């Protein structure tokens, strides 16, 4: 848990640098809210208070990562309530929640408060002297343009490096792919997460979006655009890999990742929402028990090896 | 109007014909008595009868002529009802209640070792015959509590199972789940029991338990009809349980207890009289320590 929080720090730092005080407030509110609700629930249920395990804090940070930087205070707290109380504690607490708490909170907020959840501020790095202005995310603009005109807008950010390092509008955790990747690699290196889910997730997105792009580049953005925009990196490395809500077997993890990638691209390209990562992960969370059920490892002794010619 | 009547009637007729044909093709024989018996059974599916669930028992009664008296939780009323449905006479049976024959919780009885592992008596018993030094004592890990379909068993904070005599239906689930055979079925009318299950000699028992039966014969001397001592353990002769009183007071280790005067200490059923018991004596209604 601690290591995951640690891996998220660079992304947090970039977000605070880009969006300034509001981002910091959102981060703090979400984290404190989650920890507070967790402690309150455990007190109420007369179970040992286990906020020291860091899981509530992690949920809080992930939730903040999924909110726009200018979120009003009540949005953050409501999100924290949904994440901890509804998505986690009433299932019995850590280890038992079937859905990723932070994502449940994000989706609940997105559906309930679409305006607040899609009011983005353009990044204004601290010290740049710029005023905060509202802007749209690249994914949002792409979706809108395709809906209205049937083609991508001409001025879609093509500067890969910029969006890679973090100067596009969006949620806290959608800003800097680079910082997230850094954290993700750290987790892989420390073996906190295994490669199966991130690789199959991102891989599927690249392949599928690549196919669509080749078919009609006017209408469908290129794979690189998919990679560096939206919450793909955050989702692939930090949300989909949540062990509680993903399958336990390697085969299952691969299926899970592929499913996430597939749904992400479908929702991004054809769905009503511009961003599909959170829905994709939630849907695969729902499928996790079935994946575990049908993709169990073959028990030792159930495979007849070539050498065993003895009937 | 006519069209409506005719067309709907036609649809109905066609459906009825199809259903009639199907009923003949897919006919399944069900004895109506089976359903009737299922109706009078409690539906707890406790398995006291030895069959997997009430419906299996109902089937066995009808098809195999199994005794109608196997549903102990239902009591006499159920037995008579089943017997009525089957048209046989019901033999009377004295209702039973389960008793945990041990008072040696973790404060009063010694442990051989510290058990770390699955919280389950059967699992603990497999590790060097259980952590309790006494070979017959309650392990206190609550397997019976979880097995009881009626919520009649609670574990005291010091790890002792105590049975609520009012909730207990005599289904014997706890008896079959207990690895040490600590729980015994006793006639409901008998309230005096020897709460010890150790067949060790008195000196050995004293070493590991403060409230174990040491086979000192004092109860038998005071109420010769009501007690027997077998294999270093006293036992109440339930035919003469009404004479067991003197033994309770004289027992030097307080391992004989009359449940009218309270439950083993630490249980929340403790204290007070059981309303179902008649003729409770006037004296001594406090919680016995």
């Amino acid at each position, binding site marked *: 848990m601690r290591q995951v929080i640690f891996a998220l720090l660079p992304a947090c730092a970039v977000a605070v640098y880009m969006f300034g005080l509001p981002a910091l407030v959102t981060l703090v509110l979400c984290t404190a809210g989650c920890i507070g609700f967790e402690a309150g629930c455990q007190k109420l*249920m007369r179970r040992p208070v286990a906020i020291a395990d860091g899981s509530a804090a992690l949920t809080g940070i992930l939730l903040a990562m999924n909110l726009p930087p200018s979120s009003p205070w009540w949005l953050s707290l409501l999100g924290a309530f949904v994440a901890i109380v*509804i*998505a986690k*504690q*009433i*299932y*019995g*607490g850590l280890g*038992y929640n*079937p*859905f990723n708490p932070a994502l*449940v909170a994000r*989706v*609940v907020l997105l*559906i309930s408060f679409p305006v607040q959840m899609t009011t983005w501020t353009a990044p204004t790095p601290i010290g740049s002297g710029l005023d905060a202005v509202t802007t749209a995310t690249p994914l949002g603009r792409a979706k809108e343009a395709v809906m209205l005109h049937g083609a991508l807008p001409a001025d879609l950010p093509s500067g890969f490096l910029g969006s890679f390092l973090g100067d596009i509008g969006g949620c806290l955790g959608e800003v800097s792919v680079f910082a997230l990747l850094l954290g993700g690699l750290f987790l892989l290196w420390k073996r906190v997460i295994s490669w199966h889910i991130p690789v199959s997730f991102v891989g599927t997105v690249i392949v599928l979006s690549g196919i669509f792009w080749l078919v009609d580049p006017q209408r469908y953005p290129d794979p690189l655009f998919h990679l560096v925009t939206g919450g793909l990196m955050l989702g692939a490395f930090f949300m989909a890999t949540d062990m509680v809500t993903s399958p336990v077997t390697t085969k299952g993890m691969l299926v899970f990742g592929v499913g996430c990638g597939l*749904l992400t691209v*479908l*929702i991004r390209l*054809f*769905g*009503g*929402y511009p961003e*599909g990562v*959170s*829905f*994709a992960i*939630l*849907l695969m*969370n*729902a*499928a*996790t*028990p*079935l994946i575990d*059920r049908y993709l169990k490892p073959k028990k030792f002794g159930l495979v007849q090896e070539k050498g065993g010619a003895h009937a | 109007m006519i*069209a*409506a009547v005719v*067309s*709907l009637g036609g*649809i*109905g007729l066609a*459906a*009825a014909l*199809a*259903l009639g044909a*199907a*009923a003949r*093709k*897919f*006919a*399944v024989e069900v004895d109506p008595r089976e359903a009737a018996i299922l109706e009078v059974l409690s539906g707890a599916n406790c398995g006291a009868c030895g069959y997997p669930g009430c*419906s299996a028992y109902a089937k066995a009664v009808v098809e195999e002529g199994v005794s109608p008296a196997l549903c102990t939780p239902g009591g006499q009323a159920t037995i008579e009802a089943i017997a009525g449905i089957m048209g046989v006479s019901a033999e009377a049976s004295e209702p039973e209640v389960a008793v945990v024959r041990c008072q040696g919780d973790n404060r009063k009885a010694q442990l051989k070792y510290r058990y770390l592992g699955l919280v389950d008596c059967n699992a603990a018993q497999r590790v060097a015959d259980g952590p309790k030094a006494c070979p017959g004592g309650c392990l206190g890990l609550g397997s019976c509590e979880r097995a009881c379909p009626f919520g009649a068993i609670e574990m005291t904070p010091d790890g002792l199972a105590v049975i609520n005599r009012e909730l207990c239906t005599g289904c014997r689930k706890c008896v079959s789940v207990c690895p040490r055979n600590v729980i015994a079925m006793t006639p409901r009318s008998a309230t005096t029991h020897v709460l010890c299950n150790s067949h060790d000699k008195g000196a050995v028992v004293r070493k590991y338990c403060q409230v174990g039966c040491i086979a000192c014969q004092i109860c038998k001397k005071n109420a010769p009809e009501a007690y027997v001592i077998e294999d270093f353990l006293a036992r109440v002769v339930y035919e003469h349980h009404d004479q067991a009183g003197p033994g309770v007071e004289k027992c030097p280790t307080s391992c004989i207890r009359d449940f009218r005067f309270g439950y083993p200490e630490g249980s929340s059923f403790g204290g007070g009289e059981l309303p179902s018991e008649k003729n409770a004596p006037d004296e001594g209604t406090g919680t016995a320590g």
Partner: protein
Amino acid sequence: MVELVLILVSAIFVNNFVLARFLGICPFLGVSKKVDTALGMGMAVTFVMTVAAVVTWFIQYFILVPFNIEYLQTIAFILVIASLVQLVEMAVQKLSPVLYQALGIFLPLITTNCAVLGLAVLNIQKSYSFLESVVFAIGAALGFTLAMVLFAGLRERIDLCPVPRSFRGTAIALVTAGLLSLAFMGFAGLVKG
């Protein structure tokens, strides 16, 4: 052809009968404790839905419309569906007594299942052709089965959770159903229809 595929996909995912239209909640909550029974129920419903769509389509266009008695639609449809369900019940009881036991009271309840009736009525409302009706029925049934099985998997997992006492049973099932429905919101707008 594309039209048919869209109808199918839409019925399975986008306008899932259970999770988006909130039809057929009764068996959804009642028979979803185990994946196997959920699957069995899904199959039974698939069969009933498909046959019901065919029969009601014929009744609508060959009896109700020609005789100008569309106002009898509901009664006529319920009549047909009820008989169909009876038929399925008898068949299941004979062919798979285990499934019959597991489905219990919920099997006859398909009779008054709003999912089946809803399907028949929607078919007429959307003035689907015969083929479209059948495809829509299959899609709706598959969507129903999908929702049932997903939900049953989740419930099997929740069985292992130390859910607070006051939330055990139906309460936690309803919360889970809500969250599942929330996830299915992601499909919104995927296919217009």
